[in-house]
């Protein structure tokens, strides 16, 4: 399913006045495509991802996924978000308990959830850590778990916020290759935020920079 963003504006009302973050942003990402997005700190990259995930409301504009405007939290929309992997799980629960909770919450029937989890854990090398408490996982494993959660519901749109952050070179390459293959095999449209310009060249189909609230495409 393609992701289509039209005339997206986001302004925040702050104590010092109004801050414009997105200023009429347009973007289209096709199924199976990875769009790498970079930009300075505070340029609105994470805000954009959260608007697509319907966790932040835009000031105006639309975000369509497979013909559905996702900003209104429609039940049909399926978005996988990999963001804040370090702190978006139950720290006191094991890897298995965490993923089972989210699988049930995301509405997967038990049998298919178990099969999907087994497949993702196998592919992402999480099997040996099933019983490990989340708090005791390494940063790399936390990223893998966040990716497994995002892929659980076979999303139409996959959003990734700095997947290689705090990972060593080998782990970053492994997880990035996995994302590349997973997106190519599925019909998901993927937006990946990265500060690493070489990442876009290796793993993305297209790339852009968020500047002054709009995306400037990198040729």
């Amino acid at each position, binding site marked *: 399913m393609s992701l289509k963003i039209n005339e997206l504006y*986001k302004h*925040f*009302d702050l104590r010092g006045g109004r801050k414009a973050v997105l200023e009429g942003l347009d973007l289209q990402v096709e199924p199976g495509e990875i769009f790498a997005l970079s930009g300075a700190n505070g340029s609105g990259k994470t*805000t954009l991802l*959260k608007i697509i*995930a*319907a*966790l*932040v*409301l835009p000031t105006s504009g639309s975000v369509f996924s497979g013909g559905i405007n996702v900003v209104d*939290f429609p*039940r*049909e*929309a*399926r*978005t*996988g*978000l990999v*963001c*804040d992997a370090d*702190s*978006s*799980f*139950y*720290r*006191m*629960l094991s890897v298995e*308990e965490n993923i*089972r*909770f*989210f699988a*049930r*919450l*995301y*509405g997967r*029937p038990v049998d298919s959830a178990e099969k999907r989890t087994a497949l993702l854990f196998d592919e992402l090398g999480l099997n040996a850590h099933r019983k490990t408490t989340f708090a005791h996982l390494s940063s790399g494993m936390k990223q893998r778990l966040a990716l497994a*959660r995002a892929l659980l*519901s076979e999303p139409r749109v996959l959003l990734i916020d700095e997947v290689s952050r705090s990972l060593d070179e080998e782990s970053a390459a492994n997880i990035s290759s996995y994302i590349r293959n997973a997106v190519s095999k599925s019909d998901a449209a993927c937006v990946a935020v990265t500060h690493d310009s070489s990442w876009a060249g290796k793993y993305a189909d297209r790339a852009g920079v968020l500047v002054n609230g709009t995306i400037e495409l990198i040729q």
Partner: protein
Amino acid sequence: MNIILAFLLRDVSIEKTYRFHLALKLSGVAAQIAVFYFISRFLEKPQYFLYVFVGIMFSGFFQFWLNVFPENVRQEQYWGTFEPVFLSKNRPLAVILSSASGKFVLFVMEMTLLIAVGKFLFGSGFNLSLAGFIPLFVLNSLAVGGIGLISGSFIMYFKRGDPVNWVLGASFDLLSGVYFPVAVLPSILKGFSQKLPTTSALDLWRGLLIEGKIPSPHQFAVQAAWALVLLAAGAWAFSAAFDKTRVKGDLGNY
């Protein structure tokens, strides 16, 4: 059902992790029961104690529903899981309502224990007709749960400082007749107290558990109306606060 089961099993796993906390909680209930037992032996007027016992049961019920949603919102925000739970295909209201399922089961166990203690302490003086109590319990849960949803909405938007919880938490025991009949209040407070849904609900609990009086269809209808109004108000407040918090862009902050 999947979503309710998800939160229920998650809470069981969390409680298993914090076994010491669970043990302390259970000892707290045991200590409360011991206090009730000794008061019942000490007091010459067991009827008053029975009156207060039902009042305290209802107070626990009220505090549970008033606090469960704001506590859950705050806890999920603190853990960093508040945003991921809304990435499901379920409606946000269904997510927040289901998040209470684990704590609700524990609370029902606590209530069952207190009812058993009531029966042990007061014998035939403590009546329990399940046919009357269950519908009353459900209707009152919906009503007070609606107030709890409003309280949770404040926490979601303002993060700290919830006027609903502050006002109701402090004034409930005074105005709803937990320890004394509201008839003894000064007339200005009495008039206000008698209009509160909690006062009429507690009267029905006492009538049912002490005198064995099953509420009339009219009394059930009044409780159902409160349930409908307060639950609708809670649902509206939650949806409004959810959208306003998404506009601010700080759903996951605390």
